[in-house]
C-alpha cells in the first residue's frame, strides 16, 4: 500500500526543471486524477503516487473580475489595469487562478472557453495565462 511511505523529509513537489516552459499538472496514478495546487500527498487517497503530466492548456472560465485598482507591484508581473483575474476550470478537472488576456474586458464571460498562452507563465506558479479561444467566445458569437 502506497501509504506505507516515510514522511521524513517531506517536500512539496515542483515540476521537473527539464520541462521548463511546459504546463504540467500533478497527477495521482492511483486515483487517476489531477490535482492543483501541487501537494506532497494526493487529496483523495492520501498517497504519494504522484507524477507530472502535460496539461492540454484548455479550460472554461468559472468566474472572473476586471481589476481596475491594482497592487503597487502589478507591473513587476507585466500587468496593467484593467486586467482580468479569473478562476479557470481546466479540462483536466482542476481549477486555477490566472489572467485572461483580451483587448476588451467586456468580451469576457463566465463559460467562455480559453487556451493557454505559451511561455506566459505567472511568476513561479507553473500556471500560464490564457486567451479566449476565438471561435467559441461569446464576443464572436455576438458579432
Amino acid at each position, binding site marked *: 500500500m502506497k501509504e506505507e511511505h516515510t514522511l521524513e523529509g517531506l517536500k512539496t513537489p515542483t515540476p521537473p526543471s527539464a520541462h521548463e516552459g511546459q504546463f504540467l499538472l500533478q497527477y495521482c496514478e492511483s486515483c487517476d486524477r489531477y490535482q492543483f495546487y501541487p501537494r506532497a500527498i494526493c487529496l483523495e487517497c492520501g498517497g504519494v503516487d504522484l507524477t507530472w503530466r502535460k496539461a492540454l492548456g484548455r479550460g472554461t472560465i468559472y468566474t472572473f473580475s476586471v*481589476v*481596475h485598482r491594482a497592487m503597487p*507591484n502589478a507591473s513587476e508581473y507585466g500587468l496593467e489595469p484593467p486586467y482580468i483575474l479569473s478562476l479557470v476550470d481546466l479540462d483536466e478537472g482542476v481549477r486555477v487562478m490566472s489572467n485572461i488576456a483580451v483587448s476588451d474586458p467586456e468580451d469576457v464571460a*463566465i463559460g467562455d472557453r480559453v487556451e493557454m498562452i505559451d511561455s506566459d507563465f505567472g511568476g513561479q506558479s507553473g500556471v500560464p*495565462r490564457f486567451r479566449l479561444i476565438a471561435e467559441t467566445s461569446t464576443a464572436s458569437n455576438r458579432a
Partner: protein
Amino acid sequence: MRLRGTGAIAGIGETRVGVVPDQGSFDMYVEAILLALKDAGIGRSQVDILATANSRTEPFLYHSEHVAEYLGIQPNYCLTTQTGGGTTVGVVGWAVSLIEAGLAKVAVISAADNLLSGFAVGGAMQSMAEGASHPRFEVPFGATVPSLYAQLAQRHMHDFGTSREQLAAVAVAARKHAGMTEKAQKRDPLTVEDVLSARPIATPLHRHDCALISDGGAAIVIVSAEIARDLAKPPVFILGLGEGHRWEYISQTKDVTETAAKESGDLAFSMSGLKPHDMKMAILYDAFSILPILFLEDLGFCRKGEGGAFVEDGRIEVGGQLPINTHGGLLSYCHPGRSGAMFGVLEAVRQVRGEAAKRQVLDADAVVVHAEGGVASTNGTMVLSQEV
C-alpha cells in the same frame, strides 16, 4: 450543549475610529481594554484570560503577553492571534471553553490597528493582500483582496441573477446606519445610484462595495454567567458558537457561492436552541457588499440565491424585517483590519442591552454575529441573547 450560556459579555470598550493619526495601535489596545473593564465594573487584577490580535503597524511577537505586562496583570491564559474576522469568534469560543471548564472566570479579548494612519498610501492594501492571496499561485496574476471577493460576487450574479443594485442596497443600508451613529467614519448618505456610478475597483465591486480602511480598537470582557448576574449592566449571554472552514484559497472549493458560514451557523444556532427567524438583528461581516448576501443565505435566513432579493426594499435597515450592521459595519463605521469584527460584536451587545440609541431595534433580545476572514475562508458565528 455545555457551552450554552456559560459566558456572558459584561463589558465593551472602543477607541475613536476612522481617521485617528495621533494614537498608535498599542495605545488603542490599552484604551479599549481599560474602557471595557470599566464598562464591566471589573478590576484589572481579575483578568484570567487575555487575547489580542497583534498589529500590522506595531507588532510584537508576544503581543498579548506584552499588553498584559503593560497593564500590570498576570493572566493565566494569553493568546496572540495574527488575524481578526472569523478568528475573533474562534477566540471567544476558546475563552468561553476555559470558563466552562472552570479554569478561568474573566476574559478580555481585544483587537486594534492603524491601517489608515499607520501606513503610507497603498501600504495597507499591500499588507492585507499579502495575507489573503497565495504568494505563488495568486500574487503573480495580480490578485488583490477586492478581486478575490469580486469573483465570488460575479459567480453569484451568474448563478442567481443577483444584481449590482442588490449589492448596492447593502452599501446604502450600511451608510444609512452610519448616519445614525455619531462615531462612524463615513456618514454622508449614499444612494443606489452613487454606488453604481462609483469608480470600479474589481468588477462587479466598485468603491462603495468595499470596506473602509480605518484606525480603531475595541475590546470585550467575557465573564462566567454567575459573575455576570452580579454586575451593574445587563449581561449579554453567549448562547451559541460555531466555526467553519471549507477552504483558504478560492480555487480550492467547488462552489464559491456557498461558504462555511453554513457549518458555523448550524453549530451556533443548534447550540443556542434558537433559529434564524428568532434573531432581531444581525451583524454580518461586510468587508464587501456581497458578503451579507452570502451569509443571509448560508446562515439560513433565506435560501441560496435569494440573498439579493432579501436585502432589497429596506428589509435589512433599521425598521425593516432584519436590520443588519446597525452601526454602519465595515462599509461605513470602520474597518481597521483585525478589529473589524470586534466593532460588530460591540454593536450587537449594545442592541441586546438596549443601548443602541437612534439605531435601537426594539426587543432585540437575540442577535447573531457572523464574521469571516481570508476570502470567506475562516467563518465564525455567535448567537447572543438577553436570557439563557
